[in-house]
């Protein structure tokens, strides 16, 4: 009798970007069902928040996610400022928006790179991450940190962006813009990427409404929701920009939305920098004496969609209840719609399509046989199978030419 040895990779493993576990139940090549297991890394941040002061909570929520680490303080600041009934100065608003948009650019570049990697296009991966680097350098210059910027506080921001930094930001943004052109061209005009992503992992408008999906996942299915436009905060009502949408709902549409959004972000930052120059330097905070009793519903548009913070204040110096809803919480659930019926090779890019940021759950894709329930494939093999498919397509398309 032969015995099979199973070597598990994950939940925690240096190979995986973030901890997560998907169970794909397959019949032959086709995904029949998908299950998601979580909780391996639950940090109970909502509960921890109740034992911290309002000032400390900013640093806590910043650590929910490393990639969109400014969206959570952003939404929390909006919630607390709603309770207090205070508005930050225009200069603080511009700075907040600049940080938020820089983060969107680096997050979208990161996604494009990862999507390229999952498709077996490691050149796209290398390019996107290379062009993301100058954005992180900008963060280091402005905030002192490449990640977890610690810029937000109730009533304003912690650090100013002085005049000489504005020039440097403009210069780097110009460079990033030209590189984004290059990258967008490479992705949007590539016949193999079209063949791999068009019609794959389609999410209809009704699915989006049913699962209440948000962000680029919703906008790629023609649902034009964006908190920055719908419920304006910070400097977004002060600048001109448009919400990018696409109709198809497939992985290509999601890529299109993200790539075009980067141009909007660059435009927003440029307008905010022009706005900053008109405001008085150093005027970045409003003094807050105490947080009164009350309820605050704070929202912010993270790179992945709407972040929602509900804060209940009892008049003390820490929140009585703090509920956090990250965008992936609703977006991940849509896999039940988008993945089922796909081939295993396409499931990888479909999973990556919503840009799942698990705020630390568990990352590992495992393929199970639908009939026997046996484990047949792990994450690396999934990426390999996806890459092989791209190579095959590439060869076919080249032969046709």
């Amino acid at each position, binding site marked *: 009798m032969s015995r099979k040895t199973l070597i598990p990779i994950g939940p925690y493993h240096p190979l995986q970007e973030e901890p997560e576990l998907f169970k794909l139940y397959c019949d032959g090549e086709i995904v029949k069902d998908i299950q998601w297991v*979580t*909780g391996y890394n*639950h940090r109970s941040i909502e509960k921890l928040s109740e034992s911290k002061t309002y000032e400390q909570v900013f640093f806590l929520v910043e650590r929910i996610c490393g990639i969109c680490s400014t969206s959570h303080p952003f939404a929390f600041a909006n919630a607390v400022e709603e309770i207090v009934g205070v508005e930050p100065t225009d200069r603080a608003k511009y700075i907040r928006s600049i940080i938020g948009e820089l983060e969107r650019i680096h997050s979208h570049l990161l996604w494009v790179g990862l999507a390229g990697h999952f498709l077996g296009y490691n050149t796209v991966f290398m390019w996107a991450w290379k062009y993301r680097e100058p954005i992180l350098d900008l963060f280091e210059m402005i905030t002192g940190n490449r990640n977890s910027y610690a810029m937000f506080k109730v009533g304003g921001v912690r650090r100013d962006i002085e005049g000489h930094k504005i020039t440097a930001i403009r210069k780097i943004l110009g460079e990033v813009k030209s590189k984004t052109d290059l990258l967008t061209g490479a992705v949007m005009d590539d016949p193999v990427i079209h063949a791999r992503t068009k019609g794959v992992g389609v999410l209809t408008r009704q699915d989006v409404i049913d699962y209440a999906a948000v962000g680029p996942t919703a906008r790629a299915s023609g649902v034009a929701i964006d908190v920055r436009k719908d419920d*304006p905060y910070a400097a977004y009502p002060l600048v001109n920009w448009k919400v990018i949408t696409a109709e198809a709902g497939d992985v290509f549409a999601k890529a299109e939305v993200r790539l075009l959004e980067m141009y909007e972000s660059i435009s927003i930052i440029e307008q905010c920098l022009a706005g900053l120059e008109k405001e008085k330097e150093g005027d970045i905070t409003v003094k807050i004496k105490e947080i009164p009793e009350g309820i605050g*519903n704070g929202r912010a548009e993270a790179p992945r969609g709407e972040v929602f913070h509900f804060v209940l204040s009892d008049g003390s110096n820490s929140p009585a209840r703090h509920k956090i809803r990250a965008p992936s919480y*609703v977006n991940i659930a849509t896999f039940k719609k988008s993945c089922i019926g796909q081939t295993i090779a396409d499931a990888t890019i479909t999973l990556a399509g919503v840009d799942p940021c698990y705020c630390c759950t568990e990352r590992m894709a495992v393929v199970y046989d639908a009939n026997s329930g046996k484990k047949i494939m792990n994450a690396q093999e999934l990426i390999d199978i996806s890459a092989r498919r791209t190579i095959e397509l590439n060869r076919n398309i080249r032969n046709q030419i």
Partner: protein
Amino acid sequence: MKTDSIIKIFKEKFTSDILETIRKNERRFIVTIKPETLVKVAEYLYLSEGFRFIIASAIHTKRGFEIHYHFSKDSEGLVLNIHVILDRNNPEIESLSNMFNASNWIEREMHELFGINFLNHPNQDKLISEGNWAEGVYPYRKDFKSITEE
């Protein structure tokens, strides 16, 4: 403001079910309703008025268990909190997951962390602590004490 008229029509429709309305500002409203009318109210908001379900927040207070169901009318930037107060000893309320999938996970989470029972939920399994947490111990309740506190 348009949001005021939306809330006015809503209040007129459910006059006998609404206990209290608070207007925080033109884009934030809190409406307390009788728990047994939740499905009716959610049906009106989601199916007829096109509200999006954001999330629900449970709170353990002196009054018992409270849930804020956050609904968003995206075209107006309106966040409407539908607020219910549940019984302290036997917190239960009808599930919304049969209407939209968006509330499936959060109801499982509230069940797990607060011990609130959602009636007719399609699958009220544990979401976060599957397999490594004791039954009947609810960590987000105010009377919960961790081992280090005891």
